[in-house]
């Protein structure tokens, strides 16, 4: 096969494409729309999941977590670790670490005059927690725990009161039929398994985009909870944030090298298996989505090409009679299909890039926010385009598209020239 025969095949294919330009345009539109749907919708779904993941990881786990080796199996006060000291503390204050916070995290029972519910009681340092996980704008009423040092606290009576308070979710407050400023009782078990309880005044109410979160977690001061459950100088977990949640291997080993042998350092993937499963599922889902759209597209593509071949039976017979080999015919049809696919892909890619750029600031889906909140998505959707997804869509369309056109091309190449020439 020389260059000139390829050029001829290419020219023939290109001209054939525009002989019935209406059909070609419709096909281009179909491919373009399909590719747009693949890329754009994938970006939207990525954006949704990304938002959920970011929120979810930000909410508590952090990118990397340190805890007692048995903590994940049995999250009780018995499985706690010492507050960070020495090398670990140095490692935590290293610039590689964005933010870190230690917490006491114990299952507890919260009761008001009318209702009782199970919750997870978090003893936190307000300043560290605001830095790492808690978004102050989520406070809808009252305030978060005061983030003051002990000296500042000693002079500020108002803050002292707030520091002994508790911050609970809006939904939990509704379930307990209580309000900001009222007292509730928190009951839990201390390190000797005896029941300890204490009254707290509600100093703040927060809301969360993550379903169930605000009914589950209540925040109080770390030292207060430590003395309540008898955990002096000990915490349940240390959550650490680095650059990004996807690639946390460097951070993981940085912390793991510095932490004592009796502590286990784990990525959020182990700590929150649900979130990590969601990310994996998303990767698989993107492929399925692209292939499904392509399947719908492929019928149109094959049909168009078969039609083009049927129309030109006599012509193909003539070319073969003049000496064109069947492989040349096949090549011509395949190039025609490839051109069609490439043009469609270009149109689709440009459209999707433009539409993603157009809604870069997010689209408001407040109208269906309630439904979205049920699986943890936000009311504003941001598209997140991953170039690997775009590449995947393009590769799938070209490879499967050419495979689909093999049949019409093979048919065209195997006409008997005599029969073909006599066809009317």
């Amino acid at each position, binding site marked *: 096969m020389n260059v000139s025969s390829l050029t001829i095949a290419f020219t023939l294919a290109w001209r054939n494409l525009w002989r019935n330009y209406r059909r070609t345009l419709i096909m281009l539109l179909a491919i373009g729309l399909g590719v747009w749907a693949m890329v754009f919708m994938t970006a939207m779904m990525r954006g949704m999941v990304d938002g959920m993941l970011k929120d979810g990881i930000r909410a508590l786990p952090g990118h990397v977590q340190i805890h007692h080796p048995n903590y994940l199996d049995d999250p009780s006060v018995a499985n706690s670790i010492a507050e960070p000291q020495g090398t670990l503390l140095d490692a935590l204050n290293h610039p590689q670490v964005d933010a870190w916070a230690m917490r006491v995290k114990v299952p507890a*029972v919260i009761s008001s005059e009318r209702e009782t519910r199970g919750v997870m009681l978090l003893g936190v340092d307000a300043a560290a927690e605001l830095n790492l996980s808690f978004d102050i704008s989520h406070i809808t009423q009252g305030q978060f725990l005061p983030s003051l040092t002990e000296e500042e606290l000693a002079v500020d009576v108002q803050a002292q009161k707030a520091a002994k308070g508790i911050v609970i979710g809006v939904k939990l407050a509704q379930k307990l039929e209580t309000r900001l400023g009222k007292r509730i009782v928190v*009951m839990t078990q201390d390190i000797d*398994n005896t029941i*300890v*309880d204490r*009254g707290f005044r509600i100093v703040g109410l927060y809301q969360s985009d993550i379903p169930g979160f605000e009914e589950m977690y209540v925040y109080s001061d770390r030292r207060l909870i430590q003395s309540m459950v008898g955990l002096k100088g000990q915490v349940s977990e240390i959550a650490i944030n680095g650059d990004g949640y996807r690639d946390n291997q460097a951070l993981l080993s940085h912390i793991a090298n510095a932490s004592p042998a009796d502590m286990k350092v784990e990525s959020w993937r182990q700590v929150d298996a649900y979130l990590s499963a969601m990310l994996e599922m998303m990767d698989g889902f993107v492929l399925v989505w692209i292939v499904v759209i392509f399947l719908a597209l492929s019928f149109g593509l094959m049909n168009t090409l078969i039609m083009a071949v049927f129309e030109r039976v006599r012509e193909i017979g003539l070319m073969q009679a003049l000496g064109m080999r069947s492989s040349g015919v096949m090549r011509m049809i395949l190039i025609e299909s490839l051109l069609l696919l490439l043009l469609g892909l270009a149109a689709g890619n440009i459209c999707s890039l433009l539409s993603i750029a157009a809604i870069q600031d997010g689209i408001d889906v407040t109208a269906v926010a309630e439904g979205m909140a049920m699986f943890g998505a936000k009311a504003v959707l941001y598209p997140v385009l991953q170039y690997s997804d775009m590449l995947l869509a393009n590769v799938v369309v070209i490879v499967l598209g050419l495979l689909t056109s093999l049949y019409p091309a093979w048919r065209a190449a195997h006409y008997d020239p005599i029969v073909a020439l006599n066809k009317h």
Partner: protein
Amino acid sequence: MQHPMLALLASLLLFTTTGLQSAELTAKQIVHQSMEQWRGVSSESTMSMIIHRPDWQRTMTMRAWTQGDKLSLVRVTAPKKDVGNATLIKDNSMWSFAPKINRVIKIPSSMMSQGWMGSDFSNKDIGKSTDIVDQYQHRLIETLREGEHQVYVIESIPLEDAAVVWGKEVLQVRDDFVVKRHEFWDQDGELIKVMVASEIRPMGGRAVASRLRMAKVATPDQWTEMVTHQVAFDVALSPQIFTLSNLRNPRR
């Protein structure tokens, strides 16, 4: 102050000598004394618990032993299907034994707010009632006259960090230190539940609220009544009674 008359005299003396400005101290003393009166240094009693619901009612008979305000044991003696069910309270922990499954269960914190043996008394009501003395700010709001008795009305407001959900509790204590009425108010000033002593009789050498009814204000046709048939105070009890092994295998 084990003798009730002595206690009465002492507190009356306090009343007359200190007057109104130390009403708080007196109020606290009244509450303290009423708890002492109710439990004694030690006690042994037989009682019935009647659980009433709109469409059914059941009665359980039981024996109870108490020592100080930290130890108590209650064992069901009738009806037959409940015989042997027992509850032991030691400090702030609570265990229950069910002979049907032959298991001792430590009542976890999550169950402390649930009804004790299906009654309107919560596990907490049973286990921690003496905390009322220290965890509240007591104030005498008025003194009523009822026949030959004086009745002190005391408002008890829980301290800031007290493990109490109520906004306030109002106690009516007769001058012989029997709690006549115990009201539980929520933090919005709404009455939620009331315990009333509908019968007060002298028993074991002191006045005892022999019939106590607990009911929620919202559901007056659901109540639980504790009827004390017999009680002996300040009896010598072996420490062996308040053990887990005795909870499971009664020696007496």
